[in-house]
């Protein structure tokens, strides 16, 4: 999923071009509905279509919405312990892996419970009759209107922010409205809680104020190996990225704009006073 670039920290726009850009942005804000400011509607953010093996099995692709799962589990749990890759097509999830108790099957095994109810099993053998309904819970053609309704029902009690109405996950966790689990029995390894509260100052190359990156906020859900070294392979002082690269999905853009707040919320990262 790609989002529009919201600017390029590596460029220094001239005063006339900046004024023109602001004028266009202002005109757009007046003329366009509020949602236009959020390039991807919240119900569609972090949507993943899994289709590597589905066509061979004559099944519709799996439509996975991150928001359905992230209120219940940390990013680390699925992307480290369960083994879901961060890059499309790399996980190679299949009916066989699910039936073996891996990938989706790590939780969707028909035995694990959520709020006292068994979590439906992923991928059975040639499901027939009422079992077919179970297949279509994941292998769906994708009804956009139904997804929007489901999302609105899901997010009804969660804090929202921005004109796009994105869920503020950080606030939701602070208020105890979501409690993402970080351990699945038989899958996760017992380990100490991560203590990483070192902030990293990233000097802006452009007209924006500097970024103050909080390890503490990110480590709470991600652990270390979600980001290092795959997403941030650089050593200290080398991790410079332009907003153009980020909006293309590199570095911060691996999550922000997809499953975390969008790149239009400049002030949430560019928090240091202007030099």
């Amino acid at each position, binding site marked *: 999923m790609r989002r529009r670039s919201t600017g390029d920290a590596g460029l220094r726009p001239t005063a006339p071009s900046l004024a023109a850009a602001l004028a266009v942005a202002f005109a757009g804000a007046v003329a366009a509905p509020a949602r236009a400011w959020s390039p991807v509607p919240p119900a569609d953010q972090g949507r993943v279509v899994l289709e590597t093996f589905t066509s061979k099995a004559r099944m519709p692709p799996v439509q996975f919405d991150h928001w359905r799962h992230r209120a219940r589990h940390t990013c680390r749990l699925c992307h*480290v*312990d*369960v*083994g879901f*890759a961060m890059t499309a097509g790399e*996980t*190679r999830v*299949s009916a*066989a*892996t699910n039936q*073996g*108790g*891996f*990938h989706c099957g790590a939780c969707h095994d028909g035995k694990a419970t959520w709020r006292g109810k068994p979590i439906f099993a992923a991928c059975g053998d040639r499901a027939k009759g009422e079992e077919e309904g179970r297949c279509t819970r994941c292998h769906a053609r994708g009804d956009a209107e139904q997804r929007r309704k489901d999302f609105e029902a899901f997010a009804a009690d969660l804090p929202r922010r921005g004109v796009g109405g994105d869920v503020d996950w950080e606030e939701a966790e602070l208020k105890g409205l979501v409690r993402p689990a970080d351990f699945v029995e*038989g*899958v996760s*390894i*017992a*380990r*100490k*809680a*991560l203590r*990483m509260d070192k902030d990293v100052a990233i000097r802006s190359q452009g007209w924006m104020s500097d970024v103050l990156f909080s390890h503490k906020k990110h480590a709470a859900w991600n*652990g*270390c*190996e979600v980001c*290092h*070294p*795959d997403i941030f*392979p650089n*050593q*200290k002082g080398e991790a410079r990225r332009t907003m153009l690269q980020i909006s293309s999905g590199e570095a911060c853009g691996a999550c922000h704009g997809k499953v975390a707040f969008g790149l239009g919320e400049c002030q949430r990262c560019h928090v240091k006073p202007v030099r």
Partner: protein
Amino acid sequence: MGRLGFAVLAAAGVTAAFLAGPPAAAQAPARAPAARDGWKQEFEELCAKTQDAMALDSEELRSLVSRCDKLKPAIDGLAESERKVYAKRLAGCRNLYAYVLESREAGQGR
């Protein structure tokens, strides 16, 4: 049902049970307990330290990277589903330790 019928049914039941093999619980489960699989115990020991990677000394990090490399062939020999998951997980742990080690050495070189 007479005695003969009962005997036939019992024999059929025993035969069916024999042909079906051991009960599901007795078959090797997809996620066997760590004690039964040496590789898994080693994997869990290796990957249990990722949260502490920054606090480990360089020698320990080197040892962990080396142990991950030694474990890789055992993971590569697993059945496909298990291999897909554990190869990725092991690589994640190994690469993190190597990253922290390189980061530290690069910092010392500055």
